[in-house]
């Protein structure tokens, strides 16, 4: 718990105070106990009530947190369903709109029915109170002054008479009749129910309207004169007597009308809920009529995109859905034809490639054999012939590599390139490539410096292709290094690995970072080729990189050298998001206004 308090009870084990694992909210520190009285012993046992309270609070917090978590999960779940299901969206929108409409109409109906009930009762009471006023005025006309000792008797007899027949007990639902004399304080209010005090039901405003303004007026009030709260319609009328004005009040219980109103409202509520439910069901049915064809279309499209090119939608009717289906079918047919044609073309291309390779190889082998023979006996020929024999050998070598590169490129073009992924450690591969070019590097005066991590960097790659790419990059770097060392860096991140090959040679002019990957493009055609490249190396490397789902990018500045970065995903099939190494080396000299162009992901 960590509570530091001199009164921590050592008898309470830590296990007994459960703390939710990983609860982020800090436990509010307990208020320090009052400055300990000098008589207080330090290890005093805490009173059990406080412990219980703390336990209770803890469980409350736990409960609150789990409720919040549950609510969040529910919200997330609902949002997911909302995103994914068109019918759910439509049904819920319809239900919400219907609820709002039904609720507002229902409320209007209920309020209006209540008002009608009250007004009807008021009209009924008005006729009664009019005859009551006539009777009361007649009865009170025999009294000349308010102190007449028989006046209270007349008032209570009149009140009883008006409230109901005096021989019958006052019927439930009948009014309570009350007399009040606002201007005669000596005359106490009389009512037909002597046991109840009805003066709180007569509000000051109502009394003012009846007594001072001599108007008929009514008001609805709630009173608990009988013990239970009952709603009353209090109707007041002025009385004219010989000793002043009095007020007659009919306090009519609205229990029956209240029950009516409640029944009406309950019926409205039940009807409203049933209506909303029915609307939801109806919306669901209607939605399904629209959503199902769309779902069928989506599935068909999915299947089509997965490769089943003969998937078609059924066209029914002539509406938008039928139009969609017809267009879809048309598109699918075009695609199918196109793809079939392309496949045919690819097949032809492949056939052509393999045929060409075979056809070309055969004479090439023969020519090669002959050239080899001539080369082996070049010492016997005249110096011109010897030279020709050497040229022949070299060009034939070049021809062979060009042929194989072409074949490779044509395989890429035909889409026939096959990727054989296997987890490969890139570090030894890089070292191998560097070793392979050690001789060339020595002779070019451009040593290869490797910057690789200590541990293994395993990635899902096609080793043959990647090695080829690395060989191409390192070879190009050595060739264009102009005596400066070539730096090769390998870095791996969470999801990607990058290899950067940096040279400090001529570099690239601005705009050439893209062109450099074009086929047969050379920066400077006059440069001597030391490695006998074919001009297709970078294209093939780019295709190889793309095949892995990786990037191959170039950067360079005129005179500042160039850097080529190969980025590959560690796991096959992953999308590359970022590269562990920057494309622009840290020590690049940025010429004015021309920075490294932002590399767009291929």
């Amino acid at each position, binding site marked *: 718990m960590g509570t530091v308090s001199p009164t921590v009870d050592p008898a309470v084990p830590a296990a007994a105070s459960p703390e939710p694992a990983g609860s982020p909210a800090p436990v509010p520190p307990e208020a320090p106990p009052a400055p300990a009285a000098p008589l207080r012993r330090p290890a005093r046992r805490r009173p059990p009530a406080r412990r219980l309270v703390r336990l209770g609070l803890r469980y409350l917090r736990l409960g609150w947190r789990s409720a919040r978590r549950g609510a969040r999960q529910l919200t997330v779940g609902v949002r997911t369903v*909302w995103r994914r299901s068109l019918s759910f969206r439509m049904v819920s929108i319809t239900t919400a709109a219907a609820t*709002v409409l039904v609720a507002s109409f229902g409320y209007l109906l209920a309020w209006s029915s209540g008002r009608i009930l009250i007004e009807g009762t008021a009209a009924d009471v008005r006729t009664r109170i009019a005859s009551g006023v006539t009777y009361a005025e007649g009865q009170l*006309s025999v009294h000349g002054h308010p102190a007449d000792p028989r006046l209270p008797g007349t008032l209570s007899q009149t009140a009883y008479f008006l409230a109901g027949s005096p021989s019958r007990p006052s019927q439930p639902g009948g009014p309570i009749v009350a007399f009040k004399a606002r201007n005669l304080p000596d005359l106490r209010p009389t009512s037909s129910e002597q046991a109840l005090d009805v003066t709180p039901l007569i509000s000051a405003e109502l009394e003012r309207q009846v007594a001072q303004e001599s108007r008929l007026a009514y008001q*609805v*009030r709630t009173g608990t004169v009988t013990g239970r709260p009952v709603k009353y319609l209090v109707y007041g009328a002025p009385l004219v007597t010989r000793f002043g004005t009095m007020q007659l009040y009919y306090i009519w219980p609205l229990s029956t009308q209240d029950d009516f109103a409640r029944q009406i409202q309950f019926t409205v509520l039940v009807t409203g809920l049933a209506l909303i439910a029915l609307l939801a069901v109806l919306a669901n049915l209607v939605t399904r009529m629209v959503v199902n064809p769309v779902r069928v279309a989506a599935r068909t499209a999915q299947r089509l995109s997965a490769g089943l090119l003969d998937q078609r939608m059924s066209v029914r009717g002539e509406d938008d859905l039928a139009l969609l289906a017809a267009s879809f079918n048309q598109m699918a047919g075009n695609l199918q034809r196109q793809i079939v044609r392309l496949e045919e073309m690819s097949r032809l291309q492949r056939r052509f490639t393999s045929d060409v390779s075979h056809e070309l190889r055969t004479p090439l082998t023969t020519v090669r054999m002959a050239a080899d023979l001539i080369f082996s006996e070049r010492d016997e020929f005249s110096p011109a012939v010897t030279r020709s024999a050497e040229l022949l050998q070299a060009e034939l070598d070049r021809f062979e590599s060009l042929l194989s590169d072409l074949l490779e490129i044509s395989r890429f073009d035909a889409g026939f390139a096959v990727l054989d992924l296997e987890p490969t450690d890139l570090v030894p591969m890089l070292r191998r490539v560097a070793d392979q070019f050690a001789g060339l590097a020595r002779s070019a005066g451009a040593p290869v410096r490797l910057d690789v991590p200590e541990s293994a960097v395993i990635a899902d790659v096609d080793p043959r292709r990647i090695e080829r790419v690395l060989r191409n990059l390192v070879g190009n770097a050595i060739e264009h290094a102009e005596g400066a060392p070539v730096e090769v860096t390998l870095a791996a991140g969470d999801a990607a690995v990058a290899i950067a090959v940096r040279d400090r040679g001529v570099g690239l002019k601005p705009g050439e970072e893209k062109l450099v990957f074009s086929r047969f493009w050379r920066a400077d055609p006059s440069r001597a080729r030391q490695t006998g490249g074919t001009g297709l190396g970078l294209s093939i490397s780019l295709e190889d990189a793309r095949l892995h789902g990786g990037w191959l990018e170039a950067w360079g500045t005129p005179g500042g050298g160039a850097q080529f970065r190969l980025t590959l995903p560690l796991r096959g099939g992953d999308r590359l998001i970022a590269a562990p190494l920057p494309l622009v080396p840290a020590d690049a000299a940025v010429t004015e206004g021309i920075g490294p162009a932002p590399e767009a992901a291929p």
Partner: protein
Amino acid sequence: MNRARPRTRAALSALSCLALLSGLAGCGLPGTSDVVVQERVGDAALPAGDEGTWPLAQRASVRDPKEFMRTMLSAAAGDPVEAAKRVRSFGDAPLRSRWEPPATVHVVDLDEDMAIDPRPGGFEATINVTFLGELADHGVVLPRPRRAATYKFDIAEGPDGLYLTAAPPVILLPAADLRQYFEQRTLYFWSADGAYLVPDVRYVPRRDMPRNQWPTLLVQWLLRGPSPLLRPVVRALPTDADLVGNVLSQDSRWSVNLTQAPDTDGRRLATQLRWTLAGPTGRADAVTVRVDRDRFGDEDSRYLVANPAYRAEQEPARLCLLAGRVQQIGGPSPGAVSVPYLPAGYRGLVRAAYQRFGSRRYGVLVRDAGRGRLAVDVATADANRFHRILPTALRARVVGQPTWVPTREFGLVPVDGALRLVRPSAAAAPVLPGAPGGVTAVAVAPDGRRVVLVAGGQLYAAALVADGTAISLTARTPLPLSELTGPTAVAWTAQGAVAVAGRQPRIGQTQVWSVSVDGAVQEPLQLPNQGLGTQPITQLSAVVDDPSDTSPADPVMYEANKLSYDTVGGSPVTVAELLDPGPGADRRGYPTAPFYLG
């Protein structure tokens, strides 16, 4: 989160609408609302005030001790329940706490001479009273035997007026205050056979009850039932309902609200109420009795005949005897009752009494049977002549004034001190059961149920029960006379009062007084010191005032010293005033024994 906002907004609005709906489902009507104001109702003002009330004078305003005594004694006039409280307000603090008289309010005759003797610090008042009756609840005055008493009161002079410091433990109400502060009204109850309404005299306090509240009080008293004097001869009320609210007059109709409907004919109750609420002027507005939503009234045509005093606008005929034959006094008038004539050979009449009963006429005839004895005959007549005269077996020396019982088929004659019953069809004349001995005069009210008689020098009121075959006199109550002694003749002058002739000891002459049937209100019919001679009055005859008739009442006729008088205190009737005395009437003497045919 931007993408989520429209969605969460939609979700929130949907949820809130659902919540609104479900919240509505439980609440019903709104709990409160604003005051809804409607039109102005006419605010005409009515005149205020209590008309007809006589509030009690304040103690502090009276300074004269005699006036103080008079005011203090008049404080008992009013609601008898509060009488002691009112009188107590005239006392000082110690008297108020200890003076606890019994609740009976005694109606007394206060002597004029009140002795006020000065005492240190105040006065002592001595009064002489004669007990006449008690003012009970529901406005009934119960007559009590005449009794004289003397009381002393101590009055102290205080800083703000006089105070009563000592008083006897009795509540006294002077009869003069009863007359002044109470209004005499009659309730009506149906007779036991349901044929006629019998009046019941009550006293409504004028003191602090406004006039327009009296109808409510009268109906409340009516619903409590008849007074003890009438109970034997009237029906109980057909309903034990209570009055709801006040009795109001709207458009010349009374509106009476009852809690229950009467068990039997409600129209009879309406007629009862109609006569009860009729004013002293005689105007009887129709009554609508309401019970919940039902209403009923009586029929206009029948209510008049229910009151036995109703004479259908026919004037009574004044008759007298001259030389043994019946003569009519005064000229013929078009609206007079037709008088049947006796057969020509019938002579020797000494006294007679005629009575109209519907279309028939009855007569009790007392004639000279020779040898100083008198005989009694019963005669039956149609409108014109007595076609049947039946002699009874009665022969006596002393026969008092006969009377035929109105609404009945028998008459009463005091013969030798016994009250005898005579019938038109039987010669036997039995003594009336229940009658006392020594009866010298008898008079029956127009309803035929109430009787006033003089027996043994004492005036009595009684009820004549005659349902079925048994006829008897019950509920005999002595009526006290305040000033007269030795009553000799009685006659009914009003629904609630009789004329009594007797000797006024103060002037030593005969006087005729009007005495209410409960003895409470007694007034002389002549000037207080006017005497009607020294000879006693031997016959008294009067007609009860028709309540529907607004013309002045017919005067009381009497005979004294063998002379007839047709007005009290007037000159005797002479032969010249007779209608058709016949030739030689001057020589037959003076007319005697005047009587009315009502």
